[in-house]
């Protein structure tokens, strides 16, 4: 399947790229098989994700999942962010070929790892 226009837009114009010096949680996860990496930094205040930033290395879906993840979780409560699934991410991107779903899995794993630091 071809990549969606949302996908292409995030690839060409990544949102929220970078790191946060005042982050309360930083998660750095790696897909041990393919080597893709995602780093997520969060500033959380009053149980709500105020700011999210990401860095990514890997195939285009990994880069795009990082970008769209930060958009989806910004402003959400921790409980709301915990509910986010791989499918939510794939749908938000406008679909992904099944062989690339591992990118969404890595993003959710990184999110959960960051959220776990806050509890």
């Amino acid at each position, binding site marked *: 399947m071809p990549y969606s226009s949302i996908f292409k837009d995030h690839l060409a114009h990544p949102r929220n790229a970078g790191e946060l010096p005042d982050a309360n949680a930083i998660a750095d996860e790696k897909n041990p098989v393919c*080597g893709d990496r995602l780093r997520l930094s969060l500033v959380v205040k009053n149980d709500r994700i105020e700011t999210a930033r990401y860095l990514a290395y890997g195939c285009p879906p990994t880069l795009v999942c990082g970008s769209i993840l930060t958009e989806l979780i910004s402003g959400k409560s921790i409980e709301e962010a915990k509910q986010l699934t791989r499918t939510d991410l794939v749908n938000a991107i406008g679909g992904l070929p099944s062989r*690339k779903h591992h990118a969404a899995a890595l993003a959710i794993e990184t999110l959960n790892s960051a959220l776990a630091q806050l509890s």
Partner: protein
Amino acid sequence: MPERRVYLDNSATTPVDPRVATAMARAVTETFGNASSVHGFGQQARAAIDRARREVAALIAARQNEIVFTSGGTEANNLAIRGLCQAASGHGRHIITSAIEHPSVAGVCAELEKRGWEVTRLPVYGNGIVKIDDVSEALRSDTILITIMLANNEIGTIQPIAQTGVLVRERRAAGQKNLWLHTDAVQAAGRLHLNIEELGCDLLTISGHKLYAPKGVGALYVRRGVRLHGQNVGGHQERERRAGTENVPGIVAFGEAAKLAREELEQRSQHDRALRDKFEAEVRERIEYIVMNGDREHRLDHLSNISFRFIEGEGLLINLDLEGVAVSTGSACSSGTLEPSPVIRALGVTDELARGSLRFSFGKDNTDADVDYVVEVLAAAVERLRLLSPLSRALN
């Protein structure tokens, strides 16, 4: 659709030359007879095939009755390797090949290995070139085939085929009569001056669509006297080597493309080399942390393979595609499994460098302005991806 489109993937396939398309279109409508038919329509098709065969033979300075038309390079490689191994299996079951062959050679060798053949895969070292001493050392009394590509499809390095040909002739003269040399010249044909006697090959593969002909047609050169077991049976076409009604329009197109390639070879090489050298000089000036892959001297004129540190090739490729620039990468990430390019890995580089490699292959229709545009969008895309990369953070 981007406003500007630049095609720099001429090693994957070339655009069909309008002169070739014209010749092919005429053959589609006017030369529709079956070349095996004895009537006038059939003989007209036969004559068109013969003319094309002369042109393809002339491209490699071979005799026309040594050219077998196929559906392309993959079929020609299959016919060469399987066909020879089946015909000569009584004399030995050892094959020598290189670690950087195209899948249509590597795959056939791997399959023969499963059936009990022994395969020696020669390394290529950091420059991407097989050492002739390694070929010599790998030779055994039961070796029947050496199959090494003439020029690599990912990094363009030119392999020592003429020297291997000398080695094979020496061995034959010393009594090892059943030793044959095949080369996959798909990337080299139309880009290098080729003379079959100078190369000393018994079998040589060419593909039409790499030299401005359409897809679906290729050829295998088979030296007179070499016995091949046909892979397609059920017809007498191509002197019993490849059964099936000939693809007359494709063959006519291939013949025209081969003629143009021969006539324009020097001019095309100079053009491609000038663009490639300009591109590499500008990339070096604009982009840091890069590695140019493959030998700098012994390589095809039209091809540049570069690893961009800290980023991944596919991400860069799609970023370039969004700007209308077509290039390719040998690495693939699929189902969470990384498959870095076996060719780049064979150079002994790290996974990161193998993953970050892109191939830029120029063609006769590219211009100086194309290079300027590509360097511009490439530099911007590399910078964007490096800003995203946790691997390049130490630089910022």
